[in-house]
Every structure is written in structure tokens, then in C-alpha cells.
């Protein structure tokens, strides 16, 4: 037994297993306590449409905005039944796999200690935990992008052509998960341009480029070959993304992300970058291009999503771990101890706890009716949707404030829902959404029978909230159902706050 525990290989397996267990636990606690948000509903709806679920295939077209690698993978599980938990469990598995790939990458670049520490940081990093508890494309995209970095690192380290081909394959997968993965082609180009010590054979470049671009071409090819009415939506989407108005101010990421990465982790990463400047090599260049390219792109791109910068999370973890690893290395002969504990270990423990505390807050119930897209599930959405599925006749049509709640209600409620805020000008609307041409006419003609108000959309658009409630009043809306969440007031009292109200209109 003693021999067994003393075996360094077994120890390593023990450490990484413990980290992966921690990563799994923090991602699984209360995983399904809230229902899907809009994006989750859409991706799961697409997966359900792929397996031809008789109800959801009419409500969610297969082709919308992004390639379908993740949705297809999810659909394989949907052959055994549609459940929101299935999608989330798959996301968690992908998130945990990313922690493992981060460990391997850290180890490959800087040795075991950095691998373990980077994996530990990512395992409990609020940003990564939060996003990989949801059915979003950014989690799987981050897995493939981190895998790409790992394979590029191996190529740079061992000069094996196969690693470059694998890296090209991984980049193709990144793109097929979310088309923004094409950014990393730019990052790779910059990396090889700046890393003069890495030799590149023309033949390897050619084959790798062919692999990557062939895989990428499968996305437009699948849209083209599959045909159908909705495939045009995918083609219109890029144009709309290029022309749409900004959805957040320029300081959006600066305001939201530092706390999500963990201030201490961020500080360590930056500190290490400057303190260890002299030791820079292709390793740091690789990590930096993977960090800077997405940050710069999304800083200037009009559409900013909370989860869009997730692929940099493993990189930030490794950079922070690198600083600690370097310190461990320099102190290995004369370690500083505090109360018998290695200060380096203590520092890791403090950072771990500093990450864990905000991460655990992810599981606490919502205390306000505000909501940031991509930051989690929507309280009450699933419950309202399930009430709709159980109480409204099939074929009912619902009007909501915006398309986000419409997506959620469609997924859980199995009835068609339209967002009032969807513009009838194609230049200003997501091509996936259909506008309500004339709400008055459609209500009067009995084509819209229900109006659903929700606090989250109302908070985002007071104008459309008031407009929607105007229709409720105008057409004798009667409350059919109210979804509430318990909120704590300033005086400490807990009150039930209505967050979703279902009205039936009687024109």
C-alpha cells in the first residue's frame, strides 16, 4: 500500500482526479435548479429538431446562427428523450474535459506543477463554471480551442508534423462549434510569424491548412446541401451580425469579467507576464496571441456577449499558474514556510478559496429580477413554460416582450411565441426571428391569444414592456397564471415577486 501511494505516477493521477472531481462537483451542484435561458433553449431546440422531435421541430428550425457540431452531439442523447438536464450534463462533461486539457497544456508548457495549478484554478473559476453549467456553444468551443493550443505547443516542442495536423483538425472543430473560432487562425498566423525558433515545413503548412479549411467548409456546405427554408437564415445571419448595432458599451468586458476570472488569478497572470518577461519564448507568445486576439476582436466587434471570451479562461489560468510554478521552482531548495505550511501552497489555497466563494454564489437563488444574457438560467421560465404546456391548447400563439422569453416558452411550453420587440425591419432583427407584423390585427383575428409579460425582458426594455401591457389592457387581458420568485426586501422580509405573468386576451 505504501509503495502504491509513494508511486509518483499514482500521485499525479490522484491529484488530477481530485481536481476533476472538484470541477465536476461545483458544476453539478444545483445544476438544474433554474430552467434554460434563451440561448440554451435555442440550442437544445435545434438538437431536438435534428432528431425530429414532433413538437419542437416545428418551433425551432435546425439552422439558425451557428454551426451544429455541439447541437448534433447533443441530439445523439436526445434520441433517448428530450430533457434540459441532459444538455446541461453534457456541458458539464465538456467543461470538466476542458479542465483536463488545461492540465495537459500547462504540464506540456511548464511542467506538472503548472498543469495541476492551472487545472485547479479553472476547475473553480466562476466564469468557466458559470458558462459550462449552461447549454452554450462557448464551453465546447473552449474545449476545442484549448486542445488546439495543446497541439500547437506539442508541434512547437517536438516538431512532429502529426501534431500540426491534429491542431488543424482541432481548429476546424472549434469553428464547427462556433464560427467565431476562425479568429484562432489569425492567432496561429501571428504565433508562427513571431516565433522564429519554430521551423515550419511548407508541406505541413499546406496539409494543415487543407485540413482546417476543409473542415470549416463543411459548415457552409451542410447549409447549402441540406437546403430547406431555414438554411437561408444561416446565410443572412452573418450579414446581420456585421450590420447590427452594439448591444453593450465598450467597457462591458472590463466591468463584468475581472471578477469572473478571479482578481487574484488575473493579478498573478499579469504579474507573471511582466516579472518573467526575460524568460519569454514561443510558449508565452502562443498563450498571448490566444489571449489578445479574441480580446481585441470582441472589444471592437459590436456584439458583446458575456460568455464570448470563455476561450481565454484556460489561458489566464495557465499564465497565473505559471507565475506560481516559477516561484515554486525558484524556492524548491529553500521553501519559505508559514506555520509549517509552504507559502506557495498557502497562496494556491487562498486563490482557490477566493475563486470558490464567488463560484458557490452561482448556486444561490436569484435575488433580483434583472438578468444578464449568458450568465445563467432564467428563474421561473421553465415553470411558466411547463404550466403553458399543461394548460394551453396546442396551437396557441403567445406574444412576449422580446424573443428571449419567447424561446424559453417555446422550448418548455411547446407553443409558438413571438417577441413584440422583434423589428419588422430586416436590418434590425436577428434573421432567426419572425416579427409580429400587426399585433392589433393578430389579436383581433384570434391569431394571438396569450400575452406574457416577464420581469427580465421588462427590465431590458421598458418601452416594449409598456407597449405589451398596453395590449393587455386594450384587449381585456385576464391573468391566467403568475410565476413568482421569493425576493428579500431591504428590510429583510421575503416577498413573492411576480416575474412572469400569463394573460389571456379577449378582443
Amino acid at each position: 500500500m505504501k509503495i502504491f501511494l509513494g508511486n509518483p505516477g499514482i500521485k499525479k493521477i490522484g491529484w488530477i482526479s481530485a481536481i476533476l472531481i472538484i470541477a465536476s462537483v461545483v458544476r453539478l451542484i444545483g445544476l438544474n435548479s433554474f430552467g434554460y435561458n434563451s440561448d440554451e433553449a435555442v440550442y437544445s431546440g435545434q438538437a431536438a429538431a435534428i432528431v425530429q422531435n414532433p413538437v419542437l421541430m416545428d418551433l425551432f428550425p435546425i439552422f439558425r446562427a451557428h454551426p451544429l457540431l455541439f447541437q448534433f452531439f447533443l441530439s445523439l442523447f436526445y434520441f433517448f428523450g428530450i430533457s434540459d438536464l441532459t444538455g446541461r450534463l453534457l456541458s458539464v462533461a465538456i467543461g470538466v474535459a476542458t479542465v483536463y486539457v488545461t492540465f495537459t497544456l500547462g504540464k506540456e508548457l511548464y511542467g506538472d506543477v503548472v498543469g495541476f495549478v492551472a487545472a485547479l484554478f479553472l476547475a473553480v473559476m466562476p466564469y468557466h463554471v458559470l458558462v459550462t453549467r449552461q447549454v452554450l456553444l462557448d464551453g465546447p468551443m473552449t474545449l476545442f480551442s484549448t486542445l488546439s493550443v495543446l497541439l500547437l505547443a506539442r508541434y512547437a516542442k517536438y516538431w512532429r508534423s502529426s501534431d500540426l495536423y491534429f491542431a488543424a483538425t482541432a481548429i476546424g472543430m472549434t469553428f464547427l462549434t462556433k464560427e467565431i473560432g476562425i479568429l484562432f487562425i489569425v492567432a496561429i498566423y501571428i504565433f508562427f510569424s513571431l516565433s522564429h525558433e519554430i521551423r515550419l515545413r511548407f508541406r505541413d503548412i499546406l496539409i494543415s491548412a487543407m485540413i482546417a479549411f476543409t473542415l470549416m467548409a463543411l459548415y457552409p456546405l451542410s447549409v447549402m446541401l441540406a437546403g430547406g427554408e431555414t438554411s437561408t437564415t444561416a446565410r443572412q445571419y452573418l450579414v446581420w451580425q456585421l450590420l447590427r448595432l452594439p448591444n453593450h458599451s465598450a467597457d462591458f468586458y472590463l466591468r463584468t469579467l475581472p471578477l469572473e476570472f478571479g482578481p487574484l488569478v488575473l493579478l498573478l497572470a499579469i504579474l507573471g507576464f511582466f516579472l518573467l518577461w526575460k524568460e519569454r519564448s514561443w510558449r508565452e507568445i502562443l498563450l498571448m496571441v490566444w489571449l489578445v486576439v479574441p480580446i481585441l476582436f470582441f472589444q471592437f466587434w459590436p456584439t458583446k456577449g458575456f460568455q464570448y471570451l470563455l476561450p481565454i479562461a484556460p489561458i489566464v489560468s495557465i499564465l497565473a499558474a505559471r507565475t506560481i510554478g516559477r516561484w515554486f521552482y525558484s524556492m524548491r531548495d529553500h521553501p519559505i514556510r508559514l506555520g509549517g505550511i509552504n507559502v506557495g501552497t498557502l497562496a494556491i489555497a487562498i486563490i482557490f478559496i477566493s475563486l470558490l466563494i464567488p463560484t458557490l454564489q452561482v448556486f444561490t437563488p436569484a435575488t433580483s429580477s434583472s438578468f444578464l444574457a449568458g450568465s445563467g438560467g432564467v428563474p421561473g421560465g421553465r415553470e411558466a413554460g411547463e404550466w403553458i404546456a399543461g394548460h394551453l391548447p396546442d396551437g396557441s400563439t403567445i406574444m412576449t416582450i422580446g424573443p428571449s422569453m419567447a424561446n424559453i416558452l417555446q422550448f418548455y411550453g411547446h407553443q409558438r411565441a413571438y417577441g413584440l420587440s422583434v423589428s419588422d425591419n430586416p436590418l434590425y432583427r436577428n434573421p432567426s426571428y419572425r416579427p409580429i407584423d400587426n399585433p392589433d390585427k393578430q389579436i383581433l383575428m384570434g391569431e394571438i391569444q396569450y400575452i406574457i409579460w416577464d420581469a427580465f425582458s421588462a427590465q431590458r426594455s421598458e418601452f416594449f414592456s409598456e407597449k405589451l401591457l398596453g395590449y393587455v389592457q386594450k384587449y381585456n387581458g385576464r391573468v391566467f397564471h403568475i410565476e413568482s420568485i421569493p425576493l428579500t426586501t431591504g428590510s429583510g422580509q421575503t416577498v413573492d415577486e411576480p416575474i412572469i405573468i400569463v394573460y389571456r386576451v379577449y378582443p
Partner: protein
Amino acid sequence: MRDPDGFFLVPILFIGLLLNIQPEQPDQVIESSLSPQTPIHHVVVLMQQNHTFDNYFGTYPGADGFPGNLCVPIDPAQEGNSPCIEPFHIENHSVEDLDHSASTFFLQYNDGRMDGFVSALNAQNQDGTLSLGYYDGRDIPYYWNLADEYVLFDRFFSSAHGGSIWNRMYLVAGVPGSEENRIPDGGYGNISTIFDRLQEAGISWKYYVNQYDPSLTYKSLGETSFLDPQVQWVPLLSFDRFIDDPELSSKIVDLEQYFVDLREDNLPAVSFVLALGASEHPLTSLEAGQRFTKNLIQALMESSSWENSAFILTYDDWGGWYDHVPPPQVDSFGYGFRVPAILVSPYARKGHIDNTELDFTSLLKFIIDNWSLEPLGGRSLQVNSITSAFDFDNPPRSAIILPFDRISLEEPNRAPHRIVIYLIYGSITLLAGVLFIKVFRSDENSAQN
């Protein structure tokens, strides 16, 4: 059975004592005998106006519609030499209120040859060719959608070969009510109606009238010289007892009450509905009629009553339009030509075309049988019921709000080809699996080295 004076109560109690059983309250006895014989606890009947089966469903797939190569002679007397008219889609043709008197019926029927439709109307100085016009899913999409989902009857005859007054009397009483197709001067007197039977049995009922004006009854004829449509189409307003007895007259209510009753879970066992303005009578809008019907059905579907309900849509007479099936002549009043009829119910067979020979009294037969009522006179004793349209062996279907636009069953498949998605993304998923295996196997190898 009502027993206001307690006439039967004493013997019942006496027999109860003799048998040493606990005497039950009369109300409880009635309650137990009120249980419907089928899962249908609510029947709603909407009778619209003036269309034949062929006029609405003559081209409906699978139904007994227009025969192939149909061409109706302009002058049937010429026996094969007359030019003829083929059925045509009405589209933008202007329509008129075609004559639908008993005399026109016999000319059109022409001893069962069914070839006098054009000439009979021409003789009335009307455009007889119009009788061959038809509507289809483009014009009445909602009704065609209903037929796709529920039951369409294609052997449903109007009860009488006259207009609304006879036929609507058949619907409530199983008899024509008068020798002529008009309301008798003194009203219908003591003729029993289905509502009398329901009232006697203590079963709830209501007659919902759109824009109901209680002051308009058959007695208003003397005052205005014009019999208001409400009176013509609600036979109960030509019965003294339904006008004067507050308990009975309180059951004839404005249509608004229908929606209130549904909301308050108070729908009666039997409800009749009169649309009035949205009746689809020629010159009125078919769209308005369909929307009216849709609102009634939709409200029913949203209520708790839906699970045990049957909604029947039918038409009071043929309105002068062509129909190719010679109606059996069961007595001196009818049948008249076929009319459209649709059953909407959670127990209705899905997309079923029912060929049972029926008329309006078949609905009475169903109500009588379902609630075990005393039989009514007239035809309701002999006719078929509509039970063949129900499937009581399976659980009730959930409600479905059908769209107003036609759901085309033959629309080309515009969904993407899934095989392409399966092939491309399936291959990529496999490739991703291989990639991971290769990467981490080489990781293990390098660790071992």
C-alpha cells in the same frame, strides 16, 4: 323528472320504508340518473346557414364530393341535348342569396335526378349557374383544417326540404312545427322540444344568441310586420312558455354569457348557439363566420369543459347551392339536401370522414341517449345517432388551436435534408472522438517515456 308538488315523494318514501332503506332526497335520485352514458358531458351546437356539403367540401379529399365529369344541364327537359355547367371555384364571382324555397327544392331535386339546380334558379330570375360554384380550403381554411383534425360528416342531410324555420324546428323538436315553412300565428303551442326534456330531467341547458334582444319574439310580428332573424332562427322564441316562464326564458341569453360560463366552469350540459350576423348566409362574410366559430371552439378548448365536450357545427339548409347526393325522402318534409357538418371533440376520431346517414334529429337522438331522456316525437326515434364519430375507447385528445390559414397537407417539404446533417456532423463527431483518443494516447506515451 321535475316533481314540484312532491306528488311522487310520498309513495317513494313509503316504498323506501317498506324496503327498510334510507330514503334519498329527490334531488339525489335525479343526480344519479343524470349521469351521461358517454364521456360527453357538454354538447354545443352551432347552426350556421345556407350551404350544401358540395358547396363547402365538394373537393375535399376523401369525402363524397363532386363526381368526376359532373356537368349539370341548364335545361334538364332537353335530356342530354342541353348545354351544361361544371362545378367551378367561386373565387371572385359575386354571389347572391339563392332561392331555397320548398318549390325550388323539388325542381332542383327533380325526382332524384338532381339535375334541376340551374334551371330552377333561372326560373326564379336568378343566375342558376352560380349554384354550381364551390368553396374550398382557400376560402374556408379553418373549416378544412377542422375536417383534417376532427370528424367531417358527408351523409348529413338537412331535415326538411325548406328553409331555416322548418329545419331549425327539427333541430330543437324533431318535427317541422307547421305545415308551411313559417311560424304559426299563435306560435308552436305545446310541441315538446329537447329543452323541455332537459328541463324535466334537471339537466342544464342554454341557448346563446349573439346580440340577443329579449324583446324580440314571435309576438313582435304584429308590431313590426317583419319577423326579426333572431325569431326565425331561435325557435324557442315562438313558444309562449319559453317567453313567459322566467325559469325557461332565463336560459336564452346573450352570447357573452357563453364565454363567461366557460371561464367560470359553468358551461351547461347542452348549449345551442346562434351566430346571427356571422352566419355565413350568402352575402355575409365566410371569414367572419369562420372566425366566429373559431372563437367559440377556442374558448371551449381553453376551458375545463373541453375534456368532456362535443362541439357540432352544421348548417340549417342548402341555400340553393348544388349537392349531388339525392336526399332520401323519409316523409313528406324531407330530407333536404346534404349540409356540411363537423364534430369537434377530444373524443372525435382524428381526420375521420363519417358516412353514417344523419340529419339534425340525429343530434337530438344523441342528446336523448346520452342523458337517458324521455324520447321526443317525430324522427328522433328512428334516426341514427352521431356516436359512430366518437372514439370512446381511447383517452381524450388534448385541445389544439388550429390556425386560420390552411395547413396544406401537400405542401412540398421545405425542411432541410437531415441526412446531410447526419452525414456531415456524424463524421465530424467521429473525427473529434478519434482526435481525442490520438492526443491523449500520445500524452500517455510521452508520460511513460
